[in-house]
């Protein structure tokens, strides 16, 4: 609904909005936050939160960029994914197996990973020395058949994960543990292992986002992902995935993230100051969730 509304409003008010080129720009702008949001959607449907993805993005980007010059792009990417998944599995162990509160664990991890990144880099920014002759540029700077690679990564990963979520037993079990933890326990689902795997998934998609980001910038600051965790959540929520778990879909998350990017793009094309988009985002998030809730309870205002 909100998605169509956005498209219509911006198309009517500016000529440039409804062109293929501009649409690809929007998808590309959305690709980093969007790719992370794909994995986080699994976490949220499973009834948990992940606030550590912003720090993890910084960590992964710094790691892959720094290692690129030291061990070559292939090994760098491999090592980046190994360490990123390792951190994801720490999240998964603490939340899945020790059953600690996900919000606080990932808040703690947010700070710890930030520290680890700074210790690793010694507080210095990192960059790739030879930026023109490396195939690492493929992920962030090149295009296939006129479509930018970041957009391809985002969309292809989205389609795969949508199929995993809807068409496999794994996906259905994630809905089950998020919807009713007790019932799923008595049905013999292994909640521990399922929650663990959702965190591996969000770490994996964060790693993919780091590939795009590192390749596009060819360098990285230590705090490049700061604040991304909440923008990612904003996209997930805007798509209509409930923070309580048990409902949501990858397609809706993609739409949510695209709405955020479209607001940004549309307002800029209309000539509004850059930060106006944040004000509009504020209103859109609350109104979207409000209408969702109001439709469910049949009344516009709550009764407290």
């Amino acid at each position, binding site marked *: 609904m909100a998605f169509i509304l956005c498209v219509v409003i911006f198309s009517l008010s500016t000529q440039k909005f409804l062109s293929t080129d501009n649409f690809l720009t929007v998808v590309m702008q959305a690709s980093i936050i969007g790719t992370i949001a794909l994995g986080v959607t699994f976490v949220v449907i499973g009834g948990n939160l992940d*606030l550590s993805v912003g720090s993890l993005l910084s960590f992964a980007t710094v790691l892959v960029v720094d290692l690129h010059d030291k061990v070559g792009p292939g090994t760098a990417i491999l090592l980046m994914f190994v360490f990123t998944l390792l951190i994801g599995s720490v999240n998964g162990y*603490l939340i899945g197996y*020790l*059953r*600690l*509160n996900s*919000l*606080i*664990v990932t*808040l*703690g*991890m*947010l*700070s*710890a*990973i*930030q*520290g*680890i990144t*700074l*210790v690793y880099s010694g*507080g210095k920014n990192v960059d790739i020395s030879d930026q023109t002759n490396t195939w690492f540029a493929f992920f962030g700077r090149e295009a296939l058949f006129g479509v930018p690679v970041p957009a391809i990564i985002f969309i292809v990963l989205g389609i795969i994960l949508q199929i995993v979520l809807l068409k496999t037993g794994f996906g259905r079990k994630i809905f089950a543990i998020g919807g009713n*933890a*007790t019932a799923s*326990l*008595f049905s013999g689902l292994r909640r521990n292992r399922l929650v663990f795997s959702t965190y591996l998934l969000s770490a994996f998609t964060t790693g993919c986002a780091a590939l795009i980001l590192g390749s596009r910038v060819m360098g990285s600051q230590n705090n490049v992902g*700061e*604040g991304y965790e*909440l*923008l990612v*959540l*904003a996209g997930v*929520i805007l798509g209509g995935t409930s*923070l309580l778990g048990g409902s949501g879909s990858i397609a809706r998350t993609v739409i949510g993230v695209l709405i955020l990017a479209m607001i940004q793009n549309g307002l800029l094309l209309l000539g509004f*100051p*850059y*930060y*106006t*988009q*944040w*004000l509009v*985002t*504020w*209103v859109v*998030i*609350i109104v979207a*969730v*409000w209408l969702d*809730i*109001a439709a469910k*309870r049949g009344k516009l*205002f*709550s009764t*407290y």
Partner: protein
Amino acid sequence: MNRIIYLIKRQPIWIFVFVCIVFFSFSSPYFFDIRNFSNILVQASTIGLIALGMTFVMINGNIDLSVGATLALAASLAVGLQPQLGIIGAVSVGLLSGILIGALNGIIAWKTGVDAFIVTLGAMIGVRGLVFIYTEEQAFYAYDLAYANFGASSLFGIPVLALIFVFLTIIAHLVLKYTIHGRNVFAVGGNRVAAKEAGIRVGPHMLLNFILIGFLAALSGILLSTQMGASTPNLGRNYELWTITAVVLGGTRLTGGFGSIIGTLGGVLAIAILRNGMNLLQVPSFYVLIILGSILILVLFLDKRFAEPQGVGA
């Protein structure tokens, strides 16, 4: 003896604070010193003031992610409007902006029934946008030196900022413990439906707590800007996360209905002492982040192991 064990179980963070004080006193000659202690209190006051309000909001079963942005808005207004309104006028506008944002969050949470996490997540993004639009990405400097002098001033040898923090901590403790509003905070957080049935006006009650935290965030921002004699649009970034960390370290549960100002004070001091002590030992500040993150998870783990009754299944 039983009472001591009971206290230790309820306030494990104070043991950590105590251990930290002992450790740093032995390892750094500069740590155990009245001047350093008042320094720690000043450093703690920024997060600490917000954490007082956050304790109310979190015991209520809510959360406020917009405090960092509110802090920046209030500081920018209080410094930026000084040429037009004078110090007192500008500071009043700053405080008012905090109250208004708190009220807005509270009314939205009350009337729409949208979860406070989402309401304040939206506000966090939007209010930060307001800050950037108002300041046009510029830092402001307070040209009247009286403003920065206030931040550096002392009363009876104790910094005024520390005194304000201690005074408000005591007030917050008394309000939470001995007033009807304070008892209602626990009632609403423990069981919202039951509280409503018992005749508590849940919506207005929560609104009041959001106004409280908005005011405290604004005050904290203004006091922070007096320390620097300036404000920047990026002020207070990530402070919501630090504040929540402090409150949770102090034993307040995210699910609501449980917590205390004394615990929160412990959490705030733990963070401040750790930063100060490691700074004196010349440990790079990166390690503080790792240690704080680990402690947060450890406290959660201990709480789960020892404080909660072990249930079946879930």
